[in-house]
């Protein structure tokens, strides 16, 4: 007997309904096909012919998907594009802008950039590191509404898309109206880097788990193997580390610590000591999703890996564009900013690397 649910799932397109509703529809259609199949079999039709005849009930699955979608959806307040692109995009942009505003308002200008053991961690960097979460929200919203992959990407990249329009306008203005001196072009380049390129990368990174997903049906594979064992646990670990960093910074910059010169220690230790828990969260989630040891380790160390990539890139920019050799500060920064946090995260992952469970075998979806 064929797995009719799997056959329907393969063919039916995303309906943009709740997972429970989609599950119900898939079950009902599968049940109908099964009845057709059984009827054919009782008439003496052989198995493959019976399957073929049953599937002939639907001439065009995309057409059926659209008809069901139309029939099932309630009266729409918004059209498809608004639900899958404009609204998630605007939400992402509002969250990003709101978060930046909040950071600027709550952290006095004199208090930043802060020193994380020699590594300059600016307000901008904190904002940048949080963007993946907003992009994930946006892509998830778009996906839930049945958004195509392109819509999900566009909704996630809404802010840099808007900023790129602004940047292009400024570039054209400088090229036409202003005597473009090298420093102005350098500023334009840095603006594009800070407001278009880096945010795009950060946002794309956050949206990644929601881009390659086939579909979301209760009881079926919601995400692919790599997403559920690496990207999602890793992102959660990163988000946890960023939340800890924000809290420790907020606490460390209190006047009583500033007055005693303890700010750096409070900020740094307040961030470093909970990091094993962040690593543990990532490794635990990866293990629960059936991740292999390397995936669990990578998910746990994700904040450090992200920092290596980001800080490495920024260092490169500093070296090339600003031509300021880092020397000892660089080594100190790498040790306190990457090596120690990396060790802390790794310590958190250990219980989930050693403990082997049957669930750690890679699951194969049917």
């Amino acid at each position, binding site marked *: 007997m064929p797995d009719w649910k799997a056959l329907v799932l393969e063919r039916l397109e995303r309906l943009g309904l709740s997972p429970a509703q989609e599950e119900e529809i898939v079950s009902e259609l599968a*049940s*109908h096909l099964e009845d*057709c199949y059984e009827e054919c079999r009782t008439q003496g039709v052989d198995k493959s012919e019976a399957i073929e005849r049953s599937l002939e009930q639907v*001439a065009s699955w995309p057409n059926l998907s659209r008809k069901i979608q139309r029939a099932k959806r309630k009266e729409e307040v918004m059209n498809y594009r608004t639900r899958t692109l404009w609204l998630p995009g605007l939400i992402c942009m509002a969250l990003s802008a709101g978060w930046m505003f909040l950071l600027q308002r709550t952290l006095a200008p004199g208090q930043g950039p802060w020193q994380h053991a020699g590594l300059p961690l600016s307000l901008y960097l904190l904002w940048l590191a949080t963007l993946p979460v907003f992009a994930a929200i946006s892509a998830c919203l778009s996906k839930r509404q049945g958004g195509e992959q392109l819509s999900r990407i566009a909704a996630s990249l809404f802010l840099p898309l808007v900023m790129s329009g602004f940047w292009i306008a400024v570039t054209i203005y400088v090229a036409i109206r202003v005597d473009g001196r090298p420093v102005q072009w350098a500023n334009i380049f840095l603006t594009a880097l800070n407001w278009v390129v880096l945010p795009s990368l950060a946002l794309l990174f956050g949206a990644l788990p929601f881009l390659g997903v086939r579909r979301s049906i209760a009881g079926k594979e919601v995400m692919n193997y790599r997403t559920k064992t690496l990207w999602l646990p890793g992102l959660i670990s990163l988000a946890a580390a960023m939340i800890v960093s924000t809290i420790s910074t907020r606490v460390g910059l209190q006047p009583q610590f500033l007055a005693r010169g303890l700010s750096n220690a409070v900020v740094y230790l307040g961030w470093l000591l909970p990091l094993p828990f962040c690593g543990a969260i990532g490794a635990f989630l990866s293990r629960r999703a059936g991740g292999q040891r390397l995936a669990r380790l990578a998910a746990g160390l994700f904040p450090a890996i992200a920092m290596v990539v980001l800080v490495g890139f920024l260092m490169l920019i500093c070296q090339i564009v600003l031509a300021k050799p880092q020397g000892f500060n660089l080594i100190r920064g790498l040790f306190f900013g990457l090596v120690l946090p990396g060790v802390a995260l790794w310590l958190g992952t250990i219980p989930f690397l050693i403990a082997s469970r049957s669930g750690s075998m890679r699951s194969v979806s049917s």
Partner: protein
Amino acid sequence: MKKRIRSQIARGSAELAILALLAEQALYGFEISKQIEERTEGALHFTLASLYPMLYDLEKRGWIKGRWEANTAGRDRRYYFLTAAGKKQLEPLRQEWSFFFRALDRLAGVTHA
């Protein structure tokens, strides 16, 4: 003679067929399609692709209601019931169609053709 009706009439009459059938008893999708085909001697034929969008549409309008129940074989099926709103809708629909066929009969003598 079995002859499929492929016209607007068939599409338009589908609602009436489903509602009339469900007025007698609750049925699940496959049973609905089989009974319609049998009782119309094949003149009306529902495939999965034509039946379910219509059932969902009728359900959205509140004329029928689906509910999962185990059938006699013990398998879970989504049975459709006629709601009070559906019952109210059925009689005017019957009258409309009756009026339509009488008019067509007067015009072209098609009823007993």
